[in-house]
C-alpha cells in the first residue's frame, strides 16, 4: 500500500507531466488536433516550420553557441581547478564562484550586457583618456550576430557550476598519490594533472556537462538579453511565436518545440564525437611518454583567464546593483554623478510583493521537493521502480529545453483550466526542483553505512523509525543544502512561472525579465540586488537548519512504533 502510494505520488507529480508534455507537443505537431478538431495526421506544421525565414541560421546559432560555451566552460574550469589544487584551496575564489552560481541567470545576463555595451562601464573605465571616445563608439556588443556576448554570458554562469562539480570530483579522486607517482617519473605537475587527473574528473562530471550543454542550447534568459536578434537563437524564435496571435501556428509551434529537442540531441551527438576524437588524441599523447614543459604555461594562462572572468562577472553584478542608487550617470563618467534612493523609493511597492511571492513559492517548493526526494530514495532502497525508472524520469527536465517542455505542458494546463493557479505554478516548480534535490541527496543517502540500518532494524525499529532516527539526523547537513539549492532553483525559474501562472504571479525573476533589455537599468539594478539577497537567505538557512534538535521526534517515535508500517 505504502509503496504504491509513493509510486502514485511520484507518477502524478513527475511522470504524468512529462507524458502530458510529450503529448502536448506530438499531437498538434502532426496536425492530429487542429483548432480543437480531431483530424488525420499531417505534416503541414513541419512544412510551415521549414518555410520560416532564417530558421537554419537560428538552429545553427543555438547549437554552435551552446557547444562553444560548454567547451569554454569545461576548459576554463579544468585549468582553474588544477591551479587551485596546486596552490592549496583558495577560499576567496570558492566563495566568489558560489556567489555567481547562486545569482539568477537574468541578473548575470543584464550585468554582462552593461559590462560589454559601448556605453558600458568597461568602456567608461578607458574613456576618454585611452580610447579618446567622448561619445560611445558604435560597435556591435552585446547582441552581436556571432553570439559572442551570449557565449560569454552563458560561460559566466556555467563556469562556476563546472568549478563546483569539478572540485567535488577531485575530492572523490584523491589525486595526491597519483600525482606523486607521475611527478617522480619526471612529468611536470601540469602534464601529470592533464594526463592523469583530468580524465578521472571528466568521467565524474560528464552528467553535469550534458546538463550544461542542454541548458546552453536552449538558453532563454541569456539569449533574450545578450543573444543575436537578426535572426535570434532558436529558443528565442520559439518564444516570439508563442506571442503570435495567429492560431494556425499552434501546430508550427509544437513542431518548433520538438525541433529544439532534436537540436539538443544533435548537440549531444556532436559532443560525443568530440569526446571520441579527444580521447584518441589523448591516447596518442600519453603513449608517447614525452616529458613536455610547455603544458604549465598553457594551463596557468588559461587558469588566469578563468579567474579574471569570475572577478569580472562578480564586479559587473555588483556594478549593476550600485546603479540602483544613482541618479543620472552619463557617458563617459566612470562613477555616477549623483546618488539617490529615488529608484528604491518608487519601486518598493513593486519589489515587496514580488519578493514575498518568490519566498512563498521557493520555500514551499523546497520543502516539498526535498521531502519527496527523501521518501523516493527511501523507497528506492527496496524497490526497483525508483532505483531504475525514477532516475531516468528525473533527468528529463534537465536534458530537455525548458521552452519545449513548457509548451507541451501549457496545452494540457489550458485544457484542464489549471493555468493561472498558484498550485500549478508550484507544481511546475517541483518538476525542476525535485531532480536537483534528488541529485544532491542521492549519493549521501546511499552512502549511509548499511550496518547502522541493519542494527537498528534488528533491535526492532520500524523502517519509519530507522528513517527518522538514524537517516535524517545523519543527513541533516545534506538535507539543508538540498533545501537551499531547491529554493534557489525555484527562485530563478522564469519560463515555468510565466507559463503555468499565465503571467499572474510576479516573482522577482518575472519582474526582472519584464524589464530586461529595455526599461530603466537602475530599476533592474534594484531587482538584481534584492535577488542577490536570496542566496544569502538560502545559505543562512542551510547553516541554521541542521542545528535544530530532532529530539522531539525521537520522543514521539517510540510511542508510534507499534502501530507503524510493516
Amino acid at each position, binding site marked *: 500500500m*505504502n509503496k504504491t*502510494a*509513493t509510486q*502514485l*505520488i511520484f507518477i*502524478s507529480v513527475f511522470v504524468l507531466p512529462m507524458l502530458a508534455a510529450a503529448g502536448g507537443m506530438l499531437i498538434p505537431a502532426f496536425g492530429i488536433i487542429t*483548432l*480543437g478538431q480531431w483530424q488525420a495526421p499531417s505534416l503541414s506544421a513541419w512544412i510551415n516550420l521549414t518555410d520560416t*525565414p*532564417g530558421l537554419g541560421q537560428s538552429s545553427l546559432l543555438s547549437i554552435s553557441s551552446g557547444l562553444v560555451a560548454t567547451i569554454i566552460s569545461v576548459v576554463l574550469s579544468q585549468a582553474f581547478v588544477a591551479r587551485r589544487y596546486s596552490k592549496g584551496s583558495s577560499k576567496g575564489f570558492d566563495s566568489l564562484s558560489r556567489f555567481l552560481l547562486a545569482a539568477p541567470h537574468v541578473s548575470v545576463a543584464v550585468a554582462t550586457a552593461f559590462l560589454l555595451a*559601448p556605453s558600458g562601464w568597461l568602456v567608461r573605465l578607458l574613456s576618454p583618456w585611452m580610447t579618446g571616445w567622448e*561619445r*560611445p563608439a*558604435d*560597435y*556591435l556588443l552585446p*547582441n*552581436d*550576430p556571432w553570439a559572442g556576448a551570449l557565449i560569454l554570458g552563458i560561460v559566466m554562469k556555467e563556469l562556476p557550476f563546472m568549478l563546483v562539480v569539478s572540485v567535488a570530483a577531485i575530492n572523490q579522486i584523491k589525486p595526491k598519490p597519483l600525482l606523486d607517482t607521475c611527478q617522480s617519473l619526471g612529468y611536470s605537475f601540469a602534464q601529470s594533472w592533464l594526463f592523469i587527473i583530468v580524465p578521472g574528473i571528466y568521467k565524474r562530471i560528464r552528467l553535469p556537462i550534458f546538463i550544461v550543454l542542454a541548458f546552453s542550447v536552449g538558453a532563454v534568459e541569456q539569449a533574450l538579453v545578450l543573444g543575436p*536578434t*537578426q*535572426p535570434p537563437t532558436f529558443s528565442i524564435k520559439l518564444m516570439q511565436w*508563442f*506571442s*503570435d*496571435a495567429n*492560431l494556425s501556428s*499552434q501546430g508550427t509551434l509544437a513542431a518548433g518545440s520538438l525541433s529544439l529537442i532534436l537540436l539538443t540531441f544533435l548537440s549531444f551527438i556532436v559532443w560525443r564525437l568530440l569526446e571520441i576524437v579527444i580521447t584518441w588524441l589523448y591516447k596518442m599523447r600519453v603513449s608517447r611518454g614525452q616529458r613536455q614543459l610547455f603544458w604549465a604555461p598553457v594551463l596557468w594562462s588559461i587558469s588566469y583567464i578563468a579567474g579574471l572572468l569570475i572577478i569580472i562577472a562578480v564586479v559587473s553584478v555588483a556594478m549593476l546593483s550600485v546603479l540602483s542608487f544613482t541618479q*543620472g550617470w*552619463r*557617458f563617459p563618467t566612470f562613477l555616477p554623478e549623483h546618488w539617490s534612493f529615488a529608484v528604491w523609493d*518608487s*519601486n518598493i511597492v*513593486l519589489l515587496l510583493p514580488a519578493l514575498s511571492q518568490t519566498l512563498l513559492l521557493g520555500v514551499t517548493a523546497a520543502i516539498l521537493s526535498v*521531502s*519527496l526526494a527523501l*521518501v523516493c530514495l527511501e523507497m528506492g532502497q527496496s524497490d526497483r521502480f525508483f532505483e531504475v525508472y525514477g532516475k531516468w524520469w528525473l533527468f528529463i527536465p534537465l536534458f530537455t529545453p525548458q521552452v519545449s517542455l513548457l509548451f507541451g505542458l501549457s*496545452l494540457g494546463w*489550458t485544457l484542464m*483550466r*489549471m*493555468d*493561472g493557479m498558484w498550485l500549478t505554478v508550484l*507544481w511546475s516548480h517541483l518538476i525542476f526542483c525535485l531532480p536537483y534535490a534528488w541529485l544532491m541527496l542521492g549519493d549521501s543517502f546511499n552512502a549511509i553505512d548499511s550496518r547502522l540500518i541493519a542494527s537498528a532494524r534488528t533491535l526492532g525499529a520500524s523502517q*519509519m523509525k530507522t528513517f527518522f532516527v538514524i537517516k535524517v539526523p545523519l543527513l541533516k547537513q545534506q538535507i539543508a543544502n538540498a533545501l537551499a539549492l531547491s529554493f534557489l532553483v525555484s527562485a530563478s525559474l522564469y519560463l515555468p512561472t510565466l507559463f503555468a501562472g*499565465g*503571467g*499572474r504571479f*510576479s516573482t522577482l525573476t*518575472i519582474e526582472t525579465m*519584464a*524589464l530586461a*533589455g*529595455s*526599461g530603466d*537599468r*537602475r530599476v533592474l539594478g534594484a531587482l538584481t540586488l534584492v535577488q542577490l539577497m536570496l542566496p544569502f537567505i538560502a545559505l543562512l538557512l542551510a547553516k541554521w537548519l541542521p542545528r535544530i534538535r530532532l529530539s522531539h521526534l525521537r520522543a514521539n517515535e517510540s510511542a508510534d512504533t507499534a*502501530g*507503524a*508500517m510493516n
Partner: protein
Amino acid sequence: MCVKPRSFYTWIFLVVFGLSGLVACTPPSKNETPLNLSEITWPQIEERARGQTVYWNAWGGDQRINAYIRWVGAEVKEKYDLTLVHVKLNDTSEAVARILAEKAAGRTDDGTVDLIWINGENFSDLKANNMLFGPVSGVLPNYQWVDQEQPAFIEDFTIAVDGLQVPWGLSILVWLYDSQSVTKPPQSPDELLLWASENPGRFTYPAPPDFVGTSFLKQLLIAFTEQDSLLTLPVSETSKHLADPVFEFLDQLKPLLWREGRTLPTNSLALKQLLADGEVDFSLSFNPADGISGVLSGQLAESVKTYTMKTGALSNGHFVAIPQNASAKEGAMVIANFLLSPAAQAKKADIEVWGDMSALDIDNLEPEAQALFEKLQQEKRLILPNQFERSLAEPHPSWTKYLERVWLERYAQ
C-alpha cells in the same frame, strides 16, 4: 497526536493528492446567472462586482504606467471592494494569443483575462474572432464624458469600434532628440536620411514587430504615399506596391544606422536607454510626455527635447476591452468606468504621473472636473492633442501585418 495516521507515507499521499484534488475541483461556478447587459442596471453591476478579482492584462514595460495602474488598483479596492491584478505583458499579442487559445480549447467562460489594454490589430483579431464582450461602452456611466467626435475613438485603425472597446487615452508618435548634438531636427523622412548620412551610427529604430518600430514604418508609409486613401482598405495585390518606397528608404538607411543596422533595440524603452547613454541622438515614443518626464527623473540629459516632423505624426487611440470568456466581467466594467472618471483621467494626463492625453472632451465636463485639468495646464503639466499640428490616422490593420512580414523577411535573416 489526536489522529494517528497509518504511516508517514499515507500522510504524504494524502497531502499531495489532497492538493491535486483541490486543483482539479476548484469550482468554476462563480457567476450564478449569466450577465445580460440589456436587463441589468449600473448599480446592480457594481453590486455584483463587489469582491471580484480582476486580472488586467496590460503591457508592463513602463514603470510610470505600472505605478499608475497600481494607483487604480488601490482606488477601486477602496471604492468598490475590487482586487485588481496587473498581469504585465511584454507584448499585448501574448494575451490575445492566450484568449484565442482558450477559445480553441473550448474554454468559453472562466477565462484567464478579464480586462485587456488594447488597440489596432490586436483589437481587430479579437473582434474578428467574436471574442469581445459587449458593446459595453454605452453601459458605463462615465462614457458620457468621452470625446465622441474623436475619429480615433470611432474607428480604430479603420476598424469600427462599435462599443466593443472603451476609450482610455490618445497617443501620438513623437520624436525625442538630444538638442546638443542635433541643432536642426529633420522635418521629413528625406531630411532624416540626409542627417543620418552626415551622422552615421547615431540613429536607429525599435525592431518591428515592436509596436513603436512598426509605427515608424507606418509613419513612413503615410508620408511617402501622402495619405493615399487605399491605406484605409486591406492590403491587396494592387495596393501593396505602395509600401515599396518604405523599404527602399530603409535599405538606404540601414548602413547609416547604429551598429550599421545589424541589430536594433528591442523596443522604444531600450531605444530611450540608448539615448540616455548617448549611444544615439533620437528616440521615438507614443507618449508625448516621455521626454519631459525622462529629464525630470534624471534618466535623460536636460538637452533632450520633443517634436513631431512637419510631414505629420501617427496618432491613435488606446482602449480597454473585456474578452467574451472573462471571469469577472462586472469587475472589469467597473474598472473601465473608473478609468474614464475625470479624476482618473486628470491624474493620467499629469506629466509627472504619466502624461497620456485624455480621452475626455474637457470642454464638456462639469466645472469642478474641468478645474482639475485647468490646474494641470496652469502648472504646465498637461499635454493636449492640439499641441501637435498634423496628426496622421492609422492605416488598416492589414498594413501593420504586411509591413511587419516584409520587414522580417528582408531584415531579420
